[in-house]
């Protein structure tokens, strides 16, 4: 019988029950969704990395690695597998601005791929295994012919398989490119045998031009091959320092060893996961907290409204235990239903981000998108249900205290006490409505605080979401206009001659930079030697203004700020060399993606650092730049910036989720509390009606209370939102060095939407006022 009562009572309080279930659904859903998102990234990517033998370490040498070097490295205790590896960006013949990273994993034990369609890997094959995403974006099929251009040579073959590789899970051509664009850039693997035949062909071509055939033999091909394998990829669980020493001992020279944590794919994937963790630690907690607090307030109100019924059951002879069990089951019911819906919502939120068609679908290229849940989510969900049940238990337990007669007495609200404001002259000048609302707020402090909390939460989410987008747009604007003031970026070949490269830069009327890996306090960072008299490629400071590079010292990027103060000296050593250099830190700069130390080329010359330009930035159009052996690739800035659009669209998706969540949160919390306030004051409202107040006047009173709380909520929520955003940016600083930027539109939209939500709910509640039955409402005693 009591079960029947449970459902009927729930129906009687349907708006409260529904709003509580929505709140718990939202709380659990957002909590679960965000946490599933980062965990799924870690889970799926690590699975994919394992399946494709993603390298733990990459060893680089400009001189290349010989087969003998590889044998020595593979022989190091602790190295599980090692392969000579080549990855070079080549243009696709017969297309404009399409290029591929061409990879060779010599013994195919490390940095391999999974075949999605076509032939399995064959070390003797003459064909290409092409990225399936690139193939789909460009309409390539198995059996189609592919031709790549390599220093004046055509590399041709049939597509034999469509693949995915962990090495290119985030397929970007350039360190400045945030998002893959499979229409213009992909990757392909060839067999080592095919590579050898290409080298042979290159040498054969040279014979006819420069070399007598007499000098060419198999050794010459192997020597060229040694040069071309500038990378060794390793699977090993060793520490970086340990491996560095072991490699140095084995080869007799210092080799640049970069762990996977420095590789763009792993770094970005883990960065995304960290970003998710950061987001997952703030916003969902806010939702859950609001959901639980709403539950506390609402359950307390329901229990007080049910007091007479509780007393009646007690008087009828029901034991306290049974009554408690009955009312406690309300919380359990809400908890279980809300959590079940929340799990569904969480899965949808996670899938909307982490699935092939989701927001990350264009970012990660991997075969398996299984949603995974971190273990701690289960105790949190169970804990929430237990907590909600406990809230109901405690609310009812309070009403059950004392005898049946005491329980039968109606609930009497707290007695009114005067507030401090009432002792001032200002109070007497206030109108009735103002006094009425102020007293109501002070009498129902928990309800008012919850309403305020809901509005602040709504505001924080809106400012946070929209502000994140502003900041990202500002960041891209900065990249587009202030930093990269060029039309084309020309990447130079690894073996380019320094003087010739500088000569080319001058011919192209461009700025240039030379990037190299250095070891700074044991960390691998990038040394960026910049020559930028034309302001085409700029280095910017913390305030996003161009730095005229001084020749007196180096600039550390903001992420390396902790390494040294201005005026301190830093010592670093380029990889592949035993030389160390010391330079004074004279400032900090904002770097886009890499952790870097920046200096002018004049200072590099002064310090005697051997460097060759790696990239030239010019205002010439991509098509107007003549081909040259020096040039490894050309990239149009418009094309690069276009790839950011997909990044921005991911951001937009997240922002939309947040803004919708904020609006739903605001509406549900405010409506729930508004209805509660309306029910509690229905007798007062009926009295006002009887006295002769019009519906509109009473509606205005109700709405004005909501609007006051909204004003206070906005005043608190605005700086709180900016604070949360700043905190998020600090937490994400490891990935991007972004400066907080908030456009006036964000302020306006956030304030407008929050007021809109408040006004909408106010009108919904005020509309109910028309239906108050004056006669019924005034019948009962207070």
């Amino acid at each position: 019988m009591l079960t029947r009562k449970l459902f009927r009572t729930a129906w009687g309080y349907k708006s409260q029950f529904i709003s509580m279930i929505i709140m718990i659904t939202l709380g659990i859903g957002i909590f679960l969704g965000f946490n599933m998102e980062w965990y799924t990234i870690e889970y799926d990517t690590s699975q994919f990395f394992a399946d494709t033998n993603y390298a733990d370490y990459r060893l680089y040498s400009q001189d290349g690695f010989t087969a003998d070097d590889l044998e020595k490295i593979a022989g190091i205790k602790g190295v599980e597998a090692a392969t000579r590896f080549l990855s070079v960006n080549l243009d696709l013949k017969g297309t404009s601005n399409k290029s591929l990273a061409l990879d060779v994993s010599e013994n195919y034990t490390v940095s391999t791929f999974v075949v999605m369609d076509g032939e399995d890997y064959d070390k003797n094959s003459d064909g290409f295994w092409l990225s399936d995403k690139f193939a789909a974006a460009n309409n390539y099929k198995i059996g189609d012919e592919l031709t790549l251009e390599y220093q004046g040579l055509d590399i041709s073959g049939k597509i034999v398989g469509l693949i995915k590789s962990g090495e290119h899970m985030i397929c970007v051509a350039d360190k400045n490119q945030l998002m893959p664009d499979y229409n213009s850039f992909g990757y392909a693997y060839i067999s080592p045998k095919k590579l050898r035949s290409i080298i042979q062909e290159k040498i054969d071509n040279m014979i006819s031009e420069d070399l007598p055939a007499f000098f060419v033999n198999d050794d010459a091909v192997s020597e060229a091959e040694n040069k071309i394998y500038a990378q060794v990829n390793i699977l090993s669980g060793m520490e970086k320092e340990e491996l560095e020493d072991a490699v140095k001992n084995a080869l007799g020279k210092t080799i640049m060893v970069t762990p996977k944590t420095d590789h763009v794919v792993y770094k970005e994937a883990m960065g995304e996961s960290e970003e998710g963790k950061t987001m997952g630690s703030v916003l969902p907690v806010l939702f859950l907290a609001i959901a639980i607090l709403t539950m506390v307030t609402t359950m307390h109100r329901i229990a007080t409204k049910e007091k007479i019924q509780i007393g009646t059951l007690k008087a009828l002879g029901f034991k306290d235990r049974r009554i408690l069990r009955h009312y406690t089951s309300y919380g359990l019911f809400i908890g279980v239903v809300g959590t079940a819906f929340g799990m569904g919502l969480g899965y949808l939120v996670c899938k909307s981000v982490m699935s092939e068609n989701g927001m990350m679908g264009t970012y990660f290229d991997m075969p398996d998108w299984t949603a995974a849940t971190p273990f701690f989510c289960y105790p949190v969900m169970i804990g929430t249900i237990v907590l909600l049940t406990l809230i109901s238990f405690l609310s009812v337990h309070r009403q059950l205290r004392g005898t049946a007669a005491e329980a039968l007495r109606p609930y009497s609200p707290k007695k009114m006490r005067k507030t401090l404001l009432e002792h001032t002259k200002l109070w007497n000048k206030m109108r009735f409505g103002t006094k009425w609302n102020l007293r109501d707020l002070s009498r129902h402090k928990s309800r008012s605080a919850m309403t305020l909390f809901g509005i602040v939460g709504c505001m924080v989410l809106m400012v946070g979401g929209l502000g994140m987008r502003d900041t990202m747009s500002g960041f891209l604007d900065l990249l587009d206009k202030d930093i990269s003031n060029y039309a084309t970026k020309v990447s130079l070949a690894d073996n380019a001659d320094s003087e010739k490269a500088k000569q080319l830069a001058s011919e192209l009327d461009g700025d240039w930079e030379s990037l190299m890996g250095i070891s700074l306090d044991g960390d691998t960072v990038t040394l960026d030697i910049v020559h930028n008299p034309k302001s085409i490629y700029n280095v910017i400071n913390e305030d996003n203004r161009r730095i005229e590079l001084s020749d007196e010292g180096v600039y550390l990027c903001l992420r390396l700020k902790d390494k040294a103060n201005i005026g301190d000296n830093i010592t670093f050593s380029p990889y592949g060399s035993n030389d160390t250099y010391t330079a004074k830190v004279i400032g900090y700069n904002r770097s886009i993606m890499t952790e870097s130390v920046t200096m002018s080329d004049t200072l590099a010359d002064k310090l005697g650092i051997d460097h060759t330009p790696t990239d030239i930035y010019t205002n010439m159009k991509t098509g107007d730049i003549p081909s040259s052996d020096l040039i490894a690739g050309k990239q149009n800035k418009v094309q690069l910036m276009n790839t950011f659009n997909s990044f921005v669209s991911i951001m937009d998706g997240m922002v939309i989720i947040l803004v919708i969540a904020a609006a739903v949160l605001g509406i549900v919390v405010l409506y729930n509390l508004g209805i509660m306030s309306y029910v509690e004051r229905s007798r007062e409202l009926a009295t006002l009606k009887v006295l002769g107040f019009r519906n509109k006047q009473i509606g205005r009173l109700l709405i004005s209370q909501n609007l006051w709380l909204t004003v206070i909520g906005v005043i608190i929520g605005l700086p709180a939102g900016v604070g949360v955003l700043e905190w998020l940016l600090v937490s994400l600083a490891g990935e991007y060095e972004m400066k907080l930027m908030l456009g006036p539109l964000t302020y306006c939209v956030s304030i407008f939407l929050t007021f809109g939500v408040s006004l909408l709910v106010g009108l919904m509640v005020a509309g109910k006022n028309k239906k108050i039955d004056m006669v019924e409402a005034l019948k009962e005693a207070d």
Partner: protein
Amino acid sequence: MSIVKFDNVTRVYKTGEHELKALDKVSFTLDESKFVVILGPSGAGKSTLLNMLGGLDSPTSGTITVNDRDISRLSNDELADFRASTVGFVFQFYNLIPTLTVYENVELVSEISKDHLDAKQMIEEVELTDHLNNFPSELSGGEQQRVSIARALCKNPQILLCDEPTGALDSETGVMVLKLLLKMAKSYGKTIVIVTHNQSIAKMADVVIRVKNGKIRSIEEQNDPMSADEVEW
């Protein structure tokens, strides 16, 4: 001079398929400045009658005229204005606003009534000046009902409508409240209509309307009503 006229007023309440006739073709008139008691057992329809007169409810059929104005077909806003200007209510359970002080509860009517009286003077007349700044929860039942009377009269209405005004009070306090009510109504020249099931109150009235099963059983004019002190409570 007649101030109120009920003409064939019927009020039917529908609950699902069931119909309940709370008032059945009720007709009567009330004169100005009279003390009228509507008497009847529980469920007779007396409160419905009072609610119709006060503009809290509208008849299903028939007309109610107050000051020659048909109030039975007024809009919600017109009814609100009617309640604000013409009638004052005193309820069994006082219905004061718990978050307003005594003074503020009375002063409240100045928000809606143009012709209102001075709130402080009204509170003085119900002898609650000492409790001006108290909240309702700090007052006894009798004191709360006196605030309610002050509030009703402060609007300066023509008709004072009281629904079981002594129903929640002990008999001593009830008599005291009744005396005050009559004194105030007389001194301000108001028509006063009290709905009650208490036969003793009827002895003090100028007119007694007896209601049963939604119909008027009798209308009795008393030329020599008793004073509160003469009535045996």
